[in-house]
């Protein structure tokens, strides 16, 4: 084997790189969902938002030549879908989960419909920070090629923790999510807070889409998402509605995507279908171990999904 190959070290390296590359969309979507759920609403439709974001980012980047404008427009497109979701789910007798599934269909429909002309062209990609310049191992250089979007997401997680803990608006959102009655007593408009939370959450999910199409894997195709949007909803519960834990969980899921291919590249070829299911089995296992029938999950917003 040539000197600059990494052999077995490729597996941890690929997983580490995968956490950053593949974890970024999970990170944005789960932070968005975290914000939404903190206000007491569930948005399952973020899968559709992610796809619309990915398409808008790629299309705008291609048309304007500016990937950052693409990222912004992905967020804006997400906000539009978020508004529809927010408005619908605040009508009486309308179920969050149901609207979410309808929004997955609608969002992906819009993304696929408008995205047809952008499958073939190559759009300008987001620049990356190459932190691996000191090393002459190309694999390490590649693993340390880090997207500003990833860094943004990593910075966002503690910011969000601080936001929930220490700001007035954070308090409002928590109050609305935990006990709407108390929020009412505080003079907070439940509708407005939820509306803003859902829209802001969808903005983040849209940016998650942009990281798929403009960073990694860096294309627009109708199969670009393999359920990252839906999984991010599971991640939030897994992360106990804490932004920092969303970060760790997203990294874990991103790394898990790299697990199967990395093992095969060093010659472990058994059961890759089962390896592909590893993240789901792992999440389920951890949920089974950490949940308890006697108390509700700690950290769960009290009014989550109750429609009140």
């Amino acid at each position: 084997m040539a000197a600059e190959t990494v052999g077995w070290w490729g597996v941890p390296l690929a997983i580490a790189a995968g956490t950053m590359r593949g974890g970024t969309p999970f990170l944005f979507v789960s932070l968005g969902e975290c914000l939404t759920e903190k206000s007491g609403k569930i948005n399952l439709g973020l899968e559709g938002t992610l796809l619309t974001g990915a398409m808008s980012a790629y299309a705008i980047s291609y048309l304007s030549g500016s990937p950052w404008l693409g990222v912004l427009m992905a967020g804006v497109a997400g906000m539009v879908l978020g508004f529809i979701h927010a408005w619908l789910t605040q009508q009486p007798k309308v179920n969050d989960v149901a609207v979410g599934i309808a929004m997955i269909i609608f969002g992906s429909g819009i993304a696929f419909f408008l995205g047809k002309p952008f499958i073939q062209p190559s759009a300008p990609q987001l620049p990356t920070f190459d932190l691996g310049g000191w090393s002459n191992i190309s694999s390490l250089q590649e693993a340390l090629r880090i997207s500003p979007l990833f860094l943004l997401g990593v910075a966002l997680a503690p910011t969000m923790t601080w936001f929930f803990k220490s700001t007035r608006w954070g308090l409002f959102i928590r109050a609305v999510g935990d006990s709407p009655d108390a929020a009412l007593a505080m003079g907070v408009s439940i509708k407005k807070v939820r509306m803003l939370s859902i829209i802001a959450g969808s903005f983040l999910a849209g940016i998650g889409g942009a990281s798929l199409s403009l960073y990694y894997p860096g294309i627009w195709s109708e199969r670009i998402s393999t359920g990252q949007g839906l999984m991010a909803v599971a991640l939030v519960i897994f992360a106990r509605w804490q932004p920092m834990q969303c970060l760790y969980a997203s990294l874990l899921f991103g790394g898990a995507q790299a697990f199967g291919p990395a093992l095969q590249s060093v010659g472990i070829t058994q059961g890759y279908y089962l390896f592909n299911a590893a993240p789901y089995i792992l999440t389920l296992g951890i949920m089974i171990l950490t949940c308890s029938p006697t108390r509700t999950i700690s950290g769960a917003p009290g009014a989550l999904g109750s429609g009140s």
Partner: protein
Amino acid sequence: MSTRRSLYLPRRQVIRGLLATTAFGVTSRLVGCSSAPESDAGKTGAETGGSGSGSGGDKPLVVGFIYVGSKDDFGFNQAHAEGAAAIAKLPGVKIVEQANVPETTEVQEAMRNMIEQDGATVLVPTSFGYFDPHIVKIAGEFPEVQFFHFGALYQEGKTPKNIGSFFGDVDEGQYVAGRVAAQTSKKGKLGFVAAKPITPVLRNLNSFVLGARSVKPDIKVQVIFTGDWSLPVKEAEATNSLADQGVDVISMHVDSPKVVIETAEKRGIYSSGFHAVQSSLAPKGYLTGTAWDFPSVYTQYVEQIKSGKKLMDGSIPHLTRGGLKEKFVKLAPYGAAVSDATKKDADAAQAKLVDGSLSVYEGEIKDNDGKSIIAAGKDLKITDPALDKMDWLVAGALGKVGG
């Protein structure tokens, strides 16, 4: 919903109900009126389908194309759609297309609608998985309609007579691509990103390996199966993992090779494409690749059909296959990284394959467990049925077929 025990009928509400019903009736009738010309068109279409003889005459030949994914996927489906677009330009030919049709009862309904509503007399359902049970079933119901399926699945005596299989043998193209890859590789390690371990993929892969090893007998090709036809993130991860392992040329068999080629370009390694000519995606690293030539294939079929030939009486053969010579597949133009010596060698290999003096599957060929598959001195033509049962990886390929 709960209408039980509702014998109590207030007058005002009955009136209101009647009004609402009338309004609904009027609306639906309005829609019905405006639709009259359209449904007539549908009727004539259905009649054409019923009579079943669309070939010749002044009626256009209606050809229905069905794709399993989106027809702009920059890969398998698009290659077929380009063929469809080419025959749509021919005089007297009309095409109808339906994309994103899963391999369930949905494809049966799509075929049926094309026959009954659009008057299609020739159907081209492209995906491998459409064949059994779907095409077989519909072909039995409509014996006058001709079905052309991509894949070498026709079995004499078993498959209905109105089904024809055609298949492009990529083996020769991939053999040449493998030679180019081996000569360009500096590290002597190649990679291959494959979707699933099924025969068409294995033929592609094995011929690539055979081509590479015909230049450098010790070269190794690391294989990664992603598990599905289109998983962009996994394909990118697979490409990166291969690059981490020191691979410097990557080929692939997935539905949309764009991700693999672009990722390889980012990593500064070479790639060899598939399905279509993708040189624009990787100006530096794209070497060559095997591309389908469906415009030529479909035009040949349409010409045969228009001249009155049919599958049913055997005047169109039930199993048509071709490689480089028959123009079913072609080799993409060489990229910038291919040296002149390599180009010359590849052109020579291609010429020899076309004139038959060189063969891809010439014994002895062993699988990667050391078992002899094709005995020494034996030379399998690429149309040999034994190759359609391929379930092994050739020696030099690092990987395993079993899930």
